[in-house]
């Protein structure tokens, strides 16, 4: 491995786990998610010269992944799974947080995307706006609707019963 490949491994390959987690939630198809991440990383490698050291590598990689995902969707290689037909294919059999995983699965695609990017991956609204090519206000409204939908799925009344209490109760049962 030469020095440039070493740098790429540190900057980009180290994000394979995060990219895979996100890709699974985008595709609901584990093999397709792996292919998507592999293609993302190869595209990143081919444009690594354009990446400026010190800039946000994660945002750069997630943007490539989203572009690749939507590009494949346009070419018919990947399809967005219609609401109601989703199973837990993308959840890797997670059984410790079934309520949350299930609720996330049932969110509309655009809401699930901002919730994953913002809450799980820690991107700012500005970064999500750049990544998705939508105004910040749209990011915030999608995030708000996603939260509301999660609460509805989980049967949470805002500020009367917290999700934490609900999960604790579930564990005790």
């Amino acid at each position, binding site marked *: 491995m030469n020095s440039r490949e070493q740098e790429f491994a540190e900057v980009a*390959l180290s994000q394979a*786990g995060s990219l895979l987690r996100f890709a699974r939630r985008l595709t609901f198809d584990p093999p397709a998610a792996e292919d998507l*991440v592999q293609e993302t*990383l190869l595209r990143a490698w081919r444009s690594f010269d354009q990446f400026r050291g010190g800039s946000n590598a994660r945002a750069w990689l997630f943007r490539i992944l989203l572009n690749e995902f939507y590009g494949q969707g346009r070419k018919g290689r990947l399809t967005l799974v219609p609401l109601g037909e989703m199973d837990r294919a993308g959840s890797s059999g997670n059984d410790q947080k079934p309520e949350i*995983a299930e609720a996330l699965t049932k969110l509309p695609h655009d809401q699930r995307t901002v919730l994953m990017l913002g809450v799980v991956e820690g991107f700012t609204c500005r970064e999500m706006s750049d990544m998705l090519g939508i105004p910040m206000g749209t990011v915030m409204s999608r995030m708000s609707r996603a939260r509301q939908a*999660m609460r509805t799925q989980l049967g949470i009344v805002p*500020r009367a019963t917290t999700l934490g209490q609900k999960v604790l109760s579930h564990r005790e049962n």
Partner: protein
Amino acid sequence: MNCGEIHELLPLWTTGELEASRRLAVGAHLHDCPDCAAELRQREAEDALLREAMAVESARDLMTARDLERRVMRRIADERSRRWLWPSVAAAAATLAAVLLLTQHHPVQANPAVFSDAARDHTVEIVQKAARHWRTAPAELAALEDSQGISDADVKAVEATGYRLERAKICRLAGLPYMHLVYAKDGREFSVYMRATGGKPVPEADSTSGNLQLASFARGRVQAVIVTDAPRGDCLQFTRDAEAAL
């Protein structure tokens, strides 16, 4: 600001994206309004649980992620070592003169005649199945390898990737001897013209034409020219496998 406005700004408050004046205003409101403060705490608790749920999945996916990293690095190494791949001999004829066979350790000047001769040889001997004295017995193959300074391990290495070595003979490309090995898989045949590295430069010759796929690479102790009438994807796959094996 009223509570509705505060709720709208909570995402920016959480990520630290509010400018100073609004940050102060939201902070003051949260300090004075128990409902909004409770809403913020609830969101933070929900976020923490969501992250925790996804972290469980991350642990499960760790092995897959490591495997992906290895696959990507292998592809990067392949791309580094691959010199070129031509879709057809006709296209190749126009570009042959400009192509260099580069290898990390043994830079070799490309020669168009090698590829045009290889294409012609494959067409006559494999596509048209002209009668030739092919060697198939292990002892005969070993003798051919010895005569060309090619390691039996290199020949076997390509076989180990799932392609069966069918037969072999010596041929001449651009006036120089090459070992012509024919590998097969799923009814597809691939000619590999193999030569030990370090030989003298090959002379110029005419190119040819036809509907063939060509590839070449130099790796380790050998340089190889691949010709097949199989589809481009199969040629790419074979080249990738052979390169990785050698």
